[in-house]
């Protein structure tokens, strides 16, 4: 960098001087210029004071405090119960939220039990009504299915079959079904062979 005649050190040159990179030309100027020399002396003094500031440390156990709120990724992408637990107890806010949810859950359970105990008659009548309704609905469904079956065109033919033919037909159908299942199982079975290069 060439120095225009009559000029003094700029902020950039002072920076260069502070980091020991001032060009020879500027260094020569500095050797003879009292104003610049005074300026860099003061700058050096300030920088030395800043550099000498004490190294401050956080409290002992800072890392533990941080780690209590850090969720470490599970290599198998399954968030472990431990991590969830740590997250839950990480901050006062999450702890308060968890406590509130637990209170609501336990409160509603306790309320439900208390109500049931004091309103047993109501519960019994509701239970009876449900059983009656359920029974009626089941009976109606069964009747619907049965009447549907009786109306099928093949039902009269089925009724005409004698029990021996019926038993024979069922036996053949069962044998074919079991044969199919066995064949499928053989087809889907993995080859039971060791993998040589894996050493297992």
């Amino acid at each position, binding site marked *: 960098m060439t120095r225009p005649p009559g000029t003094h050190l700029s902020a*950039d040159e002072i920076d260069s001087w502070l980091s020991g990179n001032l060009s020879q030309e500027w260094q020569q100027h500095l050797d003879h210029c009292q104003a610049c020399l005074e300026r860099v002396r003061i700058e050096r003094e300030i920088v030395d*004071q800043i550099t000498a500031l004490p190294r*401050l440390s*956080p*409290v002992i156990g800072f*890392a533990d405090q*941080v780690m209590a709120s*850090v969720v470490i990724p599970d290599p198998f992408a399954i968030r472990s119960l431990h991590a969830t637990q740590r997250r839950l107890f990480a901050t006062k806010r999450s702890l308060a939220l968890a406590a509130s949810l637990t209170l609501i859950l336990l409160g509603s359970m306790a309320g439900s039990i208390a109500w049931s105990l004091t309103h047993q008659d109501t519960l019994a009548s509701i239970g009876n009504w449900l059983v009656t309704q359920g029974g009626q609905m089941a009976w109606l469904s069964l009747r619907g299915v049965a009447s549907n079956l009786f109306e099928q065109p093949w039902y009269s033919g089925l009724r005409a079959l004698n029990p021996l033919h019926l038993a024979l037909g069922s036996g053949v159908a069962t044998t074919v079904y079991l044969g199919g299942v066995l064949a499928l199982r053989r087809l889907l079975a993995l080859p039971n062979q060791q993998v040589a290069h894996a050493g297992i």
Partner: protein
Amino acid sequence: MSSGRPEWGSLTDQDVVLLARSGQEAAYRELIRRYERPVFALLFRMVRDRELAEDLAQETFVKALNAIDSYRPEFKFSSWIFKIGNNAAIDHLRRRELDTLSLDGSPHAETPEAMQATALQIGARQESPLDTVEAKELGGAIEAAIGALRPEYRSCILLRHVEGRPYEEIAEILNLPLGTVKTYIHRARNELREALAHLKE
């Protein structure tokens, strides 16, 4: 690395981050060990309150480590963590500045009595024994002078001369053009020079 346990000293920040990403808790602790002091020191000198600086430092590390997957290794880890920490400090200082505006009373107060009632309630605090201890810890004219600088100047001067970060990295941390960083540092040094000269008088 030998017998499965990394020799941390030989690993770069990027290597440690990779181990952290693979789920090694020790790698997280190593990153904290490497940066807890510089990050805390920066924050303490920015906010000048030990307890608050610790909270902000904790917030910084939790935020960074929980988002370790979003860290881009082509940048320095130090730049990333300092950036998160500095943003936390600047955000806090801006919020505090808004609170300090309330010294004159709430802008929503409709009567002079209401103005007076809301005045000095936010931001006003008395010097406690803890403050005195902190003032001593931050003691010295230079600490006071740094504390009086604009937050942007303070970040620049601390990163440059306390943490020894190069101008380019400071520009990256503070998201400022290189020229602006240089200007801020020069202005900060000028203000420090004037403040110290005034104190000497």
